[in-house]
């Protein structure tokens, strides 16, 4: 369809211009060239997709094989399904508890970041003056500091405050690490919310906090979704901070218990691969369900910050 439309354009062009004698020639070969190009692009994408999925496929495939079968043919489909690997991994990583810990960390962090950052971002955006821009600058300033430059002292502070070894404690740390970027995003978004709304509500005798919770917060939903997705992904997949903060097995997140299993059973690939699949599962399911929002949130967040 688009090919014929283009050739129509090109044709119209040549008939109009008297000087271009070669372009007719170009056009007929250009069409086949374009088709060839499109086919080779498709082929390239297929190849890239195979490479991308290969490790995940191999992990899935070999997670249901016995160790012996894996050794004889690593690429073949399994002859019998060995779900014992999964039972093994489930037990060794204490899967349900690790999953629960991960959820707690992300929930505490997310709730704090969204609530506190939206409050601050909203008020900072609405209030003019030196104090407001100073505070905003204070938050924005830190976005360039690499995590490694603060981690050593952060570990010290969190152990002094008794947050070490607790999933809730880790969630609290994430609030402090995550609010700055979220405030920046809220600050920009609030500018698009008409000020007249605030004034009308105040005239109606609405208090400041009621105004924020009842009128403003629901209007911030689009940017809240973006912020929630970005922070959720970050906290769910972060490894270094949990490694430093969650010091005992009881508080391990999914990544930490998977890492531990990998370290302890270095050559038992059946159990390791099963644990990798188990660790991936929640994320992949969520991704396939919410893909549209996630991809939108990612590009939105990247462009705005």
């Amino acid at each position: 369809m688009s090919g014929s439309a283009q050739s129509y354009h090109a044709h119209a062009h040549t008939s109009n211009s008297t000087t271009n004698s070669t372009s007719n020639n170009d056009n007929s070969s250009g069409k086949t060239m374009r088709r060839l190009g499109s086919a080779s692009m498709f082929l390239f994408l297929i190849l890239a997709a195979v490479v991308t999925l290969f490790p995940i496929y191999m992990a899935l495939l070999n997670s249901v094989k016995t160790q012996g079968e894996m050794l004889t043919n690593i690429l073949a489909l399994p002859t019998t399904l060995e779900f014992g690997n999964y039972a093994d991994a489930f037990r060794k990583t204490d899967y349900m508890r690790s999953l629960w810990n991960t959820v707690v960390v992300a929930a505490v962090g997310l709730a704090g970041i969204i609530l506190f950052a939206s409050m601050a971002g909203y008020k900072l955006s609405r209030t003019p003056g030196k104090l407001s821009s100073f505070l905003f600058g204070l938050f924005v300033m830190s976005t360039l500091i690499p995590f490694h430059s603060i981690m050593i002292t952060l570990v010290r502070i969190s152990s002094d405050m008794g947050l070490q070894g607790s999933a809730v404690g880790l969630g609290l740390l994430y609030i402090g690490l995550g609010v700055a970027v979220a405030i920046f995003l809220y600050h920009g978004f609030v500018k698009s919310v008409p000020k007249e709304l605030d004034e009308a509500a105040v005239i109606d005798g609405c208090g400041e906090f009621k105004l924020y919770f009842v009128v403003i917060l629901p209007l911030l939903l689009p940017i809240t979704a973006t912020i929630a997705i970005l922070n959720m992904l970050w906290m769910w997949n972060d490894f270094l901070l949990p490694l430093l903060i969650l010091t005992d097995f009881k508080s391990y997140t999914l990544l930490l218990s998977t890492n531990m299993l990998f370290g302890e059973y270095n050559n038992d690939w059946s159990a390791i691969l099963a644990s990798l699949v188990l660790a991936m599962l929640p994320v992949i399911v969520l991704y396939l369900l919410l893909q549209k929002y996630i991809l939108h949130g990612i590009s939105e967040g990247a462009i705005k910050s």
Partner: protein
Amino acid sequence: MMTTRTRKLKPSAMLLLFVLPALAFYCAFTLAPAIGGIWYSLTDWNGLNPAYRMVGFSNYVEAMGDRFFLKSLWFTFKFVAFMLVLQNAIAILLALFIEAMGRSRVWFRTIFFMPNMLSLIIGGFMWMFIFTRVFPYLADQTGWLLLDESWIGDPKYSFFSILALSLWGGVGYLMVIYIAALQGVPKTLKEAASIDGAGAFTLFRHVTLPMIYPALTIGVFLTLNSSFKVFDAVYSLTGGGPGRSTQVIAINIFEEAFSFSNRYGYASAKAMILFGIVMIITIIQLAVMKRREVRA
């Protein structure tokens, strides 16, 4: 008189009330550790002993003569250079090709972005399986000697294993950004150029690329920012080894502080050097790209 005063006071008091919770968390877990990091980098604090002395800039001087730290700097710079070119080039290529597809584009986008959803710890262990189990098997079957190299154990090759893992995990993110940018390029512009006889490459070089320049700025910025701080990919594949041959800056700092010596003060100085490098490069990059953007 009274009313005007309360009115004047109220906005800033309200402001503080709204900002306070965020500010408290931010000060405790970002600002204080950052300032603490600068402070401790000037001391000989070892983490175990509560007492420490000020040692001035001697930690910084020592770091500049620390063979392993300098090696990790060099390794990181090499990694960043490769990532900068490859990650952006591959992401743009994928975005261009996907945008040229019909109905299959949704599938491709879903697949290429998927690794980005996973932690590079998980991804690293999966690739470890590929490098140490699948590759030797394939080498046996096909006789390709390249597959039989020590992709994890030999630093000459494991650099590329780390690179491959990082690209696998990172390309999809940039691809999404480039796709969004490409969708913003007006169709009429491309059509006009192809009517004028522009080939695919000329079209890209003179029409598409200038139009997606802002996205390229973001892509370069994000790549620089993440690859200087690379940790997970190295930790899961080689752990910095064998020996210290594949250590990146972040691993070197991590080990200095938490594994080998507990020299918190010295490790803090290294962390500040990393901060300085990231700052300088970001500023240079933003200045250069902004200038080119204006010209384009």
